[in-house]
């Protein structure tokens, strides 16, 4: 069996997401607070945030694992809750893995294949090989990294129009993670779809992303094109007064002083003329790593 052809109800192969005023509360904790967010169809979106920032809760709502307390969730223009058309094309893979733990992976794949109209068994087999997973083995006999890898197999082979991968790469060792990144890109370019990749390890995944959403304390801190975001952090080094002058009016994320030299990190656009003037006046400008930017933007304390 290869790709299921002519799945009757499916239309587009990418589904976008729109959240309006999404609020999720558990008892007295507010996990997500009036979140408005758009994830364009067909992009690889990085959902970044510290632990407890609301990433998993948001993904759980998108996949109808849980019901929001308030607000609207639209996946491909419809509420996913108890919506068979939308849900058959939404796949959330969590690090814990939602599998039949005591049945061989082969049977787990058969189960998924029966539920997913676009499931591709050839892709599943190739990915199993790539991650060196034996289909005769049971998920509860796997290491944490292997379980994550199996989740990735399920997530990518299902070819769902909205694929949500929640911290799946955390348990994997470096070779598996790179195998995962390669597989993700290959599958994405071969069969474009919307992929949301949540993580708090940004260094490795940033190049895979087209858009970035940073969640912080249950709210969206920023949504940005990944390349633009990378250009939005600037580090300035030079004499204290000159640095102060340059950074005035900008959001300063961090400031370190060494003797009379100050290094400051600002968040925001610096027009080329301003940059040229700064360089001419003896300041050194440099890029800010996305990871650094993220760490400072989401640092606790007054913002």
């Amino acid at each position, binding site marked *: 069996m290869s790709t299921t052809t002519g799945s009757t109800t499916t239309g587009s192969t990418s589904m976008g997401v729109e959240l309006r005023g999404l609020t999720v509360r558990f008892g007295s904790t507010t996990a997500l607070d009036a979140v408005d967010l758009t994830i364009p169809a067909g992009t690889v979106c990085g959902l970044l945030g510290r632990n407890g920032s609301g990433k998993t809760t948001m993904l759980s709502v998108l996949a109808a694992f849980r019901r929001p307390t308030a607000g609207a969730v639209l996946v491909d223009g419809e509420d996913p809750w108890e919506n068979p058309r939308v849900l058959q094309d939404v796949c959330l893979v969590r690090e814990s893995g939602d599998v039949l733990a005591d049945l061989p992976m082969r049977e787990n794949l058969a189960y998924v294949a029966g539920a997913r109209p676009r499931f591709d068994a050839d892709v599943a087999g190739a990915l199993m090989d790539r991650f060196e997973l034996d289909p005769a083995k049971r998920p509860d006999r796997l290491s944490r990294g292997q379980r994550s890898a199996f989740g990735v197999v399920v997530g990518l082979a299902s070819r769902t129009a909205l694929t949500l991968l929640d911290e799946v790469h955390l348990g994997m060792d470096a070779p598996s993670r790179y195998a995962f990144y390669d597989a993700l890109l290959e599958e994405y370019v*071969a069969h474009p779809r919307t992929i949301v990749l949540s993580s708090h390890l940004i260094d490795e995944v940033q190049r895979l992303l087209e858009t970035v959403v940073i969640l912080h304390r249950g709210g969206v801190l920023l949504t940005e094109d990944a390349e633009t975001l990378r250009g939005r952090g600037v580090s300035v080094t030079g004499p204290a007064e000159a640095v102060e002058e340059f950074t005035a009016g900008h959001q300063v994320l961090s400031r370190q002083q060494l003797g009379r030299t100050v290094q400051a990190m600002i968040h925001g656009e610096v027009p080329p003329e301003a940059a040229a003037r700064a360089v001419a006046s003896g300041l050194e400008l440099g890029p800010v790593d996305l990871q650094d930017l993220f760490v400072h933007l989401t640092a606790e304390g007054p913002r």
Partner: protein
Amino acid sequence: MFDGRAPIYLQIADRIRTEILDGTLQEGEQVMSTTQYATTYRINPATAAKAFAQLVDEGVLHKRRGLGMFVSPGAHDQLLEDRRSRFFAEVVDPVVEQARVLGIPIQDVVTRLTSDVPLGATPPRPEEEGTS
């Protein structure tokens, strides 16, 4: 402007320019597709597409419908001219600035550049001392 860790699409564009300049990519030759770029360099295809779009804007590449991206005729000369025009500002001027900071007379730099010392060899130590 932000040398070093510039946005990836700029780095890709630069890499393609360099390949055209050094002859790795010939005029009229097809360049890798965005998807090949994406999988080869582990980057998002949109990032590669952004680099290509920039090069198309500059006239270095052109798109042939259904076939892919190709190096435009005249791209080599165009890039050469562009790089030459920026050579002094980007390569020579920083050298002059460094020499000034270090107190090396410009004449020494010129001597060095015009002498037939093999590249990479230790320059002759200046006899005179204390340029302060």
